[in-house]
């Protein structure tokens, strides 16, 4: 609760519109005090946060660094199937203990004054704790006799894994991970990550917008076929393809899915009213989107979003994770990991490589997401008293048999309001 102590109470900061989660005050995308409260109430609140893949620390003593919101963390494999998550901040001066992105170590030594921690975060050594021996054998300097090493560890967080994904939580109030996710979300993760994963690519994307504008974007199944023209043109993902939205019972998490083989077309796409539809556009190399039906459910496109900041994607056979990190009120970052499986045939592996062109900051069907949040950020400047409307598909939250709805965006705001008590 350290950050928000300086901030005014949330209820003084926001007057949420009486309509509830269908109307969003634009102030939440820019206000530094709200941002501080989010760190306390969301990122250190009763939530779980994706940190990385188990295979990123394949052996005991392997570690990698990650973050939960603004807070840097270390993920370390302590035994075969066991991981610890430690706040990456020395108890002495607050320095980053582990400054390398990955490595292997039996203990963590802060580079500043060589305070040493074990994998559970316990402080096991303080350099010159007993001082230096003087000429007459007396001890000079050193820590006071009442210095308690046990009270100066690295904070060790809750950690759980599912389908090779590692999640961490600051909060004892968060339910166990699978209860937090619910059965629909858990099953879909296991379905998408069905093999022995291997990393095909890892890169980052800086966005000049509040983190929630991307959280909305990932849940917004109304926009893809409209904003991402490449998608609609090749019948990869039109709203007229069979698809819909699945949610967990509490509307925290969402899966938007489509089955492109069911596309019957919709008059909007052929009438020229929708910018995204370009009839004269054909690929010179159609093998870019060569794909195979990888899943028994025949879903060709699914975006699973876990509150608050995790996305698991399947776009044709392009499988990957996106970790959303806030970087202050008006900046955020995505950490992308593209995933293949050891079981892939050469042909399948090649298709995944070619399909990697679809996603990421240069993705033919995703690049626009890197700037559309900034378009909003710029648009709302100077008039933060206004509200955004989230009414597509009605006033409710919950699963829907169509993608012409913003039900998942409403779900996000419903949970956001609950956690921030506004």
């Amino acid at each position, binding site marked *: 609760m350290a950050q928000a102590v300086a901030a005014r109470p949330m209820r003084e900061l926001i007057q949420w519109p009486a309509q509830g989660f269908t109307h969003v005050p634009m102030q939440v995308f820019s206000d530094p005090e709200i941002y501080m409260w989010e760190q306390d109430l969301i990122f250190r609140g009763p939530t779980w946060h994706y940190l990385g893949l188990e295979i990123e620390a394949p052996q005991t003593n392997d570690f990698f660094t990650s973050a939960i919101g603004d807070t840097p963390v270390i993920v370390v494999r302590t035994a075969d199937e066991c991981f610890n998550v430690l706040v990456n901040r020395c108890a002495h001066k607050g320095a980053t203990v582990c400054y390398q992105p990955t490595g292997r170590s039996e203990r963590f030594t802060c580079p500043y004054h060589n305070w040493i921690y074990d994998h559970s975060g316990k402080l096991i050594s303080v350099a010159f704790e007993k001082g230096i021996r003087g000429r007459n054998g007396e001890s000079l300097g050193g820590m006071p006799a009442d210095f308690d090493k046990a009270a100066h560890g690295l904070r060790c967080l809750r950690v759980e894994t599912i389908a090779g994904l590692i999640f961490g939580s600051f909060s004892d109030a968060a339910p166990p991970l699978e209860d937090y996710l619910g059965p629909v979300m858990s099953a879909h993760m296991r379905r998408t990550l069905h093999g022995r994963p291997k*990393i*095909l*690519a*890892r*890169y*980052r*994307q*800086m*966005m*000049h917008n509040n983190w929630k504008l991307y959280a909305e974007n990932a849940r917004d199944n109304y926009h893809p076929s409209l*904003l991402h*023209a*490449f998608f609609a*043109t090749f019948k990869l993902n039109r709203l007229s393809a069979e698809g819909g939205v699945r949610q967990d019972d509490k509307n925290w998490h969402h899966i938007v899915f489509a089955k492109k083989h069911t596309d019957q077309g919709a008059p909007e796409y052929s009438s020229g009213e929708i910018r*995204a539809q*370009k009839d004269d*556009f054909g*690929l*010179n*190399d159609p093998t*870019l989107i060569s794909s195979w039906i990888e899943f028994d459910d025949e879903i060709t496109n699914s975006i699973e979003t876990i509150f608050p900041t995790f996305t698991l994607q399947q776009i044709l056979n392009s499988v990957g994770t996106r970790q959303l990190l806030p970087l202050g009120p008006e900046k955020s*970052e995505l950490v992308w990991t*593209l995933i293949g499986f050891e079981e892939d045939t050469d042909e399948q592996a090649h298709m*995944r*490589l*070619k399909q*990697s*062109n679809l996603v*990421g*900051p*240069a993705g*033919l069907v995703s*690049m*626009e997401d*890197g*700037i*559309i949040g*900034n378009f909003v950020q710029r648009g709302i400047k100077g008039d933060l008293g206004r509200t955004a409307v989230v009414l597509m598909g009605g006033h409710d939250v919950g699963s829907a048999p169509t993608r012409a709805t913003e039900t998942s965006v409403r779900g996000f705001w419903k949970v956001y309001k609950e956690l921030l008590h506004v």
Partner: protein
Amino acid sequence: MSDGAFGDTARSIAASSHITERITRLMTDYSAVIDNDRLESWPDFFVQNCFYSVIGRSDHEVGRLAGFMYCDNRDMLVDRIRSLRSANVFQPHRYRHIISPPRILAVNGDVVRCETSYALIRTSVPEGAMVVFSTGRYLDEIVFEGSDAKFQRRVAVTDSDRIDMLLVIPI
């Protein structure tokens, strides 16, 4: 040293300087085409069975192939430009490439391997904000088709693994 041997060496030096000149021209023409927004001509710098990718240095160093862009033939380059022109949405911006002289690493038969550093400044339009968008190096395999030097393989390895906002115009 016989006259004949001297002549061979001279011819060899002349040939190699000629090759260097053609490679240098390829590099500078490539940058000019992108920076001057003549992107439709960009695929012409490649042979049909080419490979072009843009990949972060960390991925490249551990032997991964996928990166930001992955094109394993010239048609994919044409598709990139057509998508950029007619489908993708982005704030207009301009590139300026600053490139080093090419560092020739090897000549294997008809293929020249070389490495060239670049710095790429991106200017947004109309605000004019300028950022060092990317620095890195090109790892190239160059072949000669008649009088033209062309890329058989060009991998742009970016020093940063992070892209600011989006990458739509090729590097």
